[in-house]
């Protein structure tokens, strides 16, 4: 089976992931994308989500909190704001972040926060959701 090199880099942890893989499934701002080897050149922005990485007949999940993805026929480069393997994810923290963000958003609808606060809360919610997804924890 043909492979493609996947590299995930973050600003403060260096290269989080670098392996030859068979397929990558990710979510860009335009929708879900599946990348196979020899894909055409592509540049897109990612939203916080779980990357599904397929190699050696198995599937690994990797959390990314948004960033950019460049695809060339030989290589996928993901520049993520942060990226975490399941073992690094703190479930309790993600859960409480989820709850906080949700409260913020419902609170906004009731009393009225600023536009920026709500955007930030939505982003936090998306990140918490993605983290829980990677960890396989049901979302509350």
């Amino acid at each position, binding site marked *: 089976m043909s492979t493609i090199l996947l*590299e995930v*880099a*973050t*600003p*403060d*942890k*260096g*290269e989080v992931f670098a392996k030859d893989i068979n397929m990558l499934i990710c979510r*860009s*701002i*335009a929708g879900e*994308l599946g990348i196979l080897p020899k894909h*055409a*050149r*592509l*540049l*897109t*922005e990612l939203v916080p989500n779980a990357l599904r990485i397929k190699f050696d007949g198995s599937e690994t999940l990797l959390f990314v909190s948004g960033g*950019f993805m*460049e695809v060339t026929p030989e290589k996928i*480069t993901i*520049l993520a704001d942060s990226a975490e393997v399941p073992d690094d994810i703190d479930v309790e923290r993600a859960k409480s972040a989820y709850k906080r963000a949700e409260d913020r958003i419902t609170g906004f609808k009731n009393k009225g926060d600023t536009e920026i606060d709500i955007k930030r809360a939505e982003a936090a919610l998306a990140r918490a959701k993605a983290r829980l997804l990677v960890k396989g924890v049901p979302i509350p």
Partner: protein
Amino acid sequence: MANLQHIRRRIKSVKNIQKITNAMDMIARSRFNAARDALLSNIPYVNKTKEIMRRVVSQMRGREYEHPFLKTRDELIAEQQNADGKFLFIVIASDKGLAGSFASNVFKEAHDTIEYDGTDTGTSMDDDGDDENFHKKNFDALNAVKPIAHRTQKQQRQMNATGGVARAAAHGGGSSSGANVSVAREYNDAAYIDGIEIITVGRKATTHFQQRGYNIIKSYHGISERPQYKYAKEIADLVMERYASGEIIDVTLIYTQFKSAISCVPDDVTLLPLVTDDYAKASANLKEEYIYEPDVMSILNEFLPRRLATRIYGAMLHSAASELSSRMNAMSNATDNAQELVGRLNLFYNKVRQAGITNEINEIVGGANALE
């Protein structure tokens, strides 16, 4: 004859200083390790961003994606000939001294770049073949189009303000000590100063440029040793805002590049605008076009600001590691020197003590002889 007590006191004070420099060395060493780790884990990200940008921007050549950050050299010249925007420089140095020539090297590079007038003095060591140092290239290009007789206003100002004498003084005279020649003030050229804005990181940089009468629009203190992304983002946002409003037309970043623990080289990088001509090298083997999802403009609008902040953050990390390694070197040298000095003083002390004893014996013998 030297007083024994004085020598003893001197030895003690040298030893005390040695203790301090030794402590500073150790502090710098442990901080340096942290700074180096931070830098090393940032490097892949910065390099990959750079690669992607290079590929994308080189593809922009000859195409009409009119992003304000991207310009061909012709466009740039056409624009800067008449535009009245300012040049912005971001100078990253340290908060504290005692780091050898770390800060003054940065300032030297900064003056080299800021007061560049078409003739390279050769003091700058940044021609490392990367395609990021456009400031001088842009200036030369502008120069070629508008020969000396018909300089643009700005060039004329820059020329006036940085006559050969001033430049020699600024570059050769050691910019941080002794013969402080205030280039800007000495020439008292208000128009020239008005054409330049500086953002400083580090207290040393702020005082240096303040003394010389430059217009500092913002300074950051207390962040140079442990840089954080949010400050880089803040600077990037400020820069982009001013660039978008047309107040500034050229942004250059000056920082110290960390190459290894014994080699830190000042570097200047043009952040804005990105001149697509300079990305020619990378495009040679690139024929296919990218697919942009959802479309070019929205990707560029997100990606280029990110690249800007990443670049600044990376430069801050480089600078932090350089500062700490310079301090480490300076302090371990100081400790060694103190050790040597203590050794020499000890020898001197013993000689003096011995001379005293010999004298006393002579006196006793002499006295005894006189009695006989």
